[in-house]
């Protein structure tokens, strides 16, 4: 686990459900296959409302040529959001899509359980929780630094900073890099077989 993550922010508000992160017509792709996981990444946030997407494309026009082969990546490493982030469908494809698109950390006021667990179990991205709702203090394009040692998020563009909650009970899993790595570390399962 990195001590700090620095990158450009994609700013969202409350109740972003997993259908908006990756719509159901893309769920035929199997994220356990590396090439199909990347394709999911190319369509990350494709389910956001059209008027929002027009003004705030997650994958911009310059990046779009890579959509078909899954090489399109977003320039956003950070997402900020309000409460209820990842509500709805259990599709782990949503966490996979965000991770494959290049997102490393979300800072939200609250998460739906399954999405939160999926982020932690896959190690695709870190779900950080802000102490206050900070979603209106950030704009898409802001440069942001998340400091996981001192539990703060810095908006470097606006020169403000806010508190984030300590990781709590999921910290050992996050530090291990995911559910399987954690289970191996604590001796619940054996080593990964070499093939």
């Amino acid at each position: 686990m990195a001590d700090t993550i620095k990158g450009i922010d994609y700013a969202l508000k409350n109740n972003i459900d997993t259908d908006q992160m990756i719509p159901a017509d893309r769920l035929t792709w199997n994220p356990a296959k590396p090439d199909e996981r990347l394709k999911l990444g190319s369509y990350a946030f494709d389910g956001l409302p059209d008027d929002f997407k027009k003004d705030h494309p997650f994958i911009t026009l310059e990046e779009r040529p890579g959509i078909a082969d899954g090489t399109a990546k977003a320039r956003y490493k950070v997402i900020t959001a309000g409460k209820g982030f990842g509500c709805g469908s259990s599709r782990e494809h949503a966490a996979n899509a965000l991770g494959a698109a290049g997102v490393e950390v979300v800072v939200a006021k609250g998460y739906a359980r399954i999405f939160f667990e999926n982020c932690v179990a896959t190690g695709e991205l870190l779900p950080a929780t802000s102490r206050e709702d900070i979603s209106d203090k950030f704009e898409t394009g802001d440069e942001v630094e998340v400091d996981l040692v001192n539990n703060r998020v810095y908006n470097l563009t606006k020169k403000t900073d806010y508190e984030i909650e300590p990781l709590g009970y999921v910290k050992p899993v996050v530090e291990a890099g995911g559910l399987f790595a954690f289970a191996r570390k604590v001796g619940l399962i054996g080593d990964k077989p070499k093939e």
Partner: protein
Amino acid sequence: MSGRTITEKIIDGNTDWEKTKKLNGNGRVVNVDLLLTHDVCGPPTSGIFYQEFGRNARVWDPRKVVIIPDHYIFTKDATAARNIQVMRDFAKEQGITNFYDVETPRYRGVCHVALPEAGHVKPGQVIFGTDSHTCTHGALGTVSAGIGNTTGAYILGTGHALMNVPESIKFRLENLLPAYTSAKDVILKIIGEIGTDGADFKAMEFCGPAIERLGIEDRMTICNMAIEAGGNGIIAPDEKTLDYVRLRRSMSRSECSNLKKLIQELQSDPEAKYLKKFVWDASQIEPMAACPHSPGNVKRVRDLDVKLDSVYIGSCTGGKKKDFFDAAMVFYRYGKKASIPLLLVPATCEVVDFIQTEKIGGKTLYNIFEESGADMNSMGQPSCAACLGGPKDTYGRINDEPNHNRASTTNRNFPKRMGSGNVYLVSPFTAAASAIKGKLTDLRDL
């Protein structure tokens, strides 16, 4: 060990205390009774299972794995067909006999209705499924929750889930529901009150006379949508639960009497701790609708003036036998036809049989719907269909009509959830009344 909720009792009973020590206080290692998966999340789950446990790995107990293809069944999409084949191969390799394959007499339809119908669910179990609506099975007194593919793969290999014991919120419904309302109105009302994140990470325990009066399918409707408030639903098992399970599960005499005893124990203790307690008067509940684009945007149907383009009855929430019975009752009782397209997608084959054989006033439900002008084209094709949009050729999907207004008995109305359009989540009563009037309609105003 006094003062526990049903949820705490079930999880305590399934906890592997020895293995739990390895977690150093960060949760529990819990034995899983059933793992459910389907055609969308099954392939990544089995894929991760093989990647992590090795190509020759075996699932922990093939009898406890249930695979029910239901999401993308009646589509020409080649990748969807490939995914069903992946599940077919996996079931064969692993000796999983609880596989309800497409285009065979074993096919059932929507997993959350099929799982209890096929007798897999019984009170006291811990059930995980790679689908958020796995919480449906809390209606039969189980701890049930949706999980992701990685967690599913871990369970496949170990039979264990690493979890925390959730705090419970109690929802007590005093008195009885009025005749023009149903279970759907209850859960919509609750989600509207507490919000879509109101029970995040929590167990929602439903109780009181109005809940006790409901049949198992109506209880399933309530627990099914607990996830729309972020929680998992649970209802204490009773005689109705026992009857439902006994009909569907071949049990020895001793298993049956053990289950009877268990049901008496699976009640929350009076001194159990709750995060919050809500008490509502069920007799005051009115027909409700969740307006676009959130299941938490709940209003009284009477306060809405919305012209509709279509009505959809289906899904694990609103496509069960009781749901079609409720809808048919409206057409029968009022003798009126639908004035706009009415799309019917039974959840399972058992629901299809029911529609074809169950009668109201000498007419089968099938005849009643046919005479009401409903579209009968998907009657023989139980599946998730357009509830979650799906591939472009999915029956009932709203394709590129952003202004299309639909009333639906399903569970979610997120942006573009059913393809496009504006979806209003309602009860089967309200759906039928609205199909007749062509606008959102409270049954009392028909």
